[in-house]
């Protein structure tokens, strides 16, 4: 029994994070783009984005008890803000092909890149672009948060289930707006946006999502986080204890939307093109299911859930669609079967294991040690899963 001191634990966490990031960096350099292992990086990138969005949804649904279904709409805003302002000027005519190059004639990333490029050369271009990217991501978050603040004014006064429907409705309205022809010179209406600046290394989304999640964790562990949880547990008692319901709900809603918008910007970078069509209520449902799989009220859970979800739906389960899975091939395995299996797994989790992977607990080194002890003393067949979650857990910034 070696007790880990607090200091040792944080050293351990820092080391694990550093090793993990280094591994990603080196792996990215070494693994060629057509290798099968490349999928690992795709999952890592998309998983990180989804992890951030899932955690932001968890802040709202799991920690503040507001059942909001507007996440896809907020991601849409973030993705578009980022894309619109980072398309290089030279590409604008071709991207906005039906709108004479659109209304906006500058690119934040390009301009910054050029500006710094003249001073510092190639490194300056890269630096400028990255500053531009980060700046735009923050803008995406802030603007999304602004929209959320406006939506929140009427919506947050509603009761739980009405809130769900109203946020769902707002997400639909937002999507309709972005597809609207009259908004075309800015949003390119029905056509997608592309050719904008994106990141080059998988480290970017991992670090960006990691930092955002770290902020959310810090917030949850602060006095404000406690007020959120109080609202979740009992609105009337929270109010009687002096917690201003509306102010705190609004705060949680805005912060959650900020990160959803930022996540949307990251998703835009991951996809390298943005169209408004995928940002439907189905996307919100998927994020909600990630939160449920991970455990409502657990940040670690949401992170693990996101990676598992992305890996399963985009990678591991694909065999179910193509008719060959684990050496089994059967006629009933045709496109769409993967999603049925997936939906069944999710229903099983919802019905029989409603606490999800982590319940409302968080990752801790003691928990991990305890987990391994339990594994080695009995169950053996979980070792694979264990291994997987372990790597995921390492990402959790303490």
């Amino acid at each position, binding site marked *: 029994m070696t007790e880990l001191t607090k200091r040792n634990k944080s050293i351990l966490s820092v080391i694990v994070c550093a090793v993990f990031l280094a591994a990603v960096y080196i792996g990215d350099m070494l693994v060629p783009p057509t290798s099968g292992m490349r999928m690992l990086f795709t999952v890592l990138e998309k998983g990180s984005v989804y992890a951030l969005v899932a955690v932001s949804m968890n802040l709202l649904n799991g920690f503040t008890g507001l059942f909001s279904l507007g996440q896809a709409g907020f991601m849409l805003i973030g993705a578009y803000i980022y894309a619109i302002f980072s398309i290089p000027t030279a590409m604008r005519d071709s991207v906005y092909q039906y709108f004479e190059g659109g209304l906006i004639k500058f690119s934040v990333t390009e301009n910054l890149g050029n500006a710094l490029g003249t001073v510092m050369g190639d490194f300056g271009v890269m630096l400028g672009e990255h500053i531009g990217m980060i700046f735009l991501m923050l803008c995406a978050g802030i603007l999304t948060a602004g929209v959320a603040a406006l939506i929140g004014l009427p919506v947050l006064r509603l009761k739980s289930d009405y809130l769900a429907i109203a946020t769902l409705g707002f997400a*639909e309205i937002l999507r309709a707006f972005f597809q609207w022809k009259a908004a075309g010179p800015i949003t390119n209406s029905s056509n997608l946006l592309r050719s904008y600046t994106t990141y080059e290394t998988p480290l970017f989304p991992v670090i960006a999502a990691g930092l955002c999640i770290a902020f959310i964790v810090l917030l949850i562990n602060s006095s404000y986080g406690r007020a959120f949880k109080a609202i979740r547990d009992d609105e009337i008692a929270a109010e009687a204890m002096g917690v201003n319901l509306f102010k705190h709900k609004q705060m949680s809603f805005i912060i959650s939307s900020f990160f959803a918008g930022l996540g949307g910007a990251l998703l835009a970078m991951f996809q390298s093109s943005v169209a408004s069509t995928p940002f439907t209520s189905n996307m919100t*449902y998927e994020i909600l299911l990630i939160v449920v799989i991970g455990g409502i009220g657990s940040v670690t859970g949401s992170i693990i859930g996101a990676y598992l979800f992305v890996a399963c739906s985009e990678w591991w389960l694909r065999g179910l669609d193509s008719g060959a899975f684990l050496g089994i091939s059967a006629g009933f395995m045709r496109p769409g079967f993967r999603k049925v299996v997936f939906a069944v797994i999710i*229903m099983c989790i919802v019905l029989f294991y409603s606490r999800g992977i982590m319940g409302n607990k968080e990752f801790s080194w003691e928990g991990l040690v305890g987990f391994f002890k339990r594994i080695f003393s009995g169950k053996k067949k979980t070792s694979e899963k264990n291994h997987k979650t372990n790597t995921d857990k390492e990402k959790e910034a303490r």
Partner: protein
Amino acid sequence: MNFFVENLPYILAGISVGGQYALIAIGYTMVYGILRLINFAHGDMFMVAGLVMVYLAASLPVYIAIPIVIVFTVVLGCTIEVVAYRPLRSAPRMSIMISAIGVSYLLQNTALYVTGGLTQTYPTIPWLAKTVTVFGAHTKMVTLITPVLTIALVIALVILIKYTKIGMAMRAVSRDFETSQLMGIDINRVITVTFIIGSFLAAIGSILYFSNYTGVMPTSGSMPGLKAFVAAVFGGIGSIPGAVIGAFIIGICENIIKGMELTVFSNAFTFVLLIIILMVKPTGLFGEKNIDKV
């Protein structure tokens, strides 16, 4: 006169689609009234009813297929209740709502798998799909039948709820879940009956709706479902006449908006309406005020 003929198609379409929304909305409002649950899967059940009809009609005559579809939908509705909602009765509200979303996800994905993602063409029900002329405007027979049938069914339902024992039990349960349980009402039976009625009406609604808009795809149910829910909220959740009036209003307004060539915002309008009504009169047109006990 010309103006009237030109604009009549919108009104006709509005009334017809309103009637179909109404039939779905009743299912929402009744389930919500009793379980305080937005049954997200209700719209998808409506879609499944449409799909089953497509597959049945391929091998059976329509007049046999229709009753089977209705029975199937009712059984499906009850199964969903027993499997996905009953075990969570004492769980927090959010869990049961998530379960509903899960069921909706499952139904849609199963439909996607079964149809292979292809739109299925709804079988032609000879009498309903016939084209008729009303004041110079051409439309399908079903457009005219829908409002009549809807209102007839609603009257029957209101009578059932007002004058039968089970109807009384339903009213009691929707008023106070715990107390009526103490009074010896078999809650599960009441809920089952609610789901039977809701599914039955959804099946009828699906026959009417898809006779008019003949393509069935896995996502066909979600938009009508959402709109029907908005209609239920608009009319005052728990109130059946409210749901029906709300549905007709939404159906007609939606088509008038399209007639004004603002198609883009016809869905948006529904949600704006929802938010306005929730702000101004959260209990809807005919809803009753509930006070939280402290």
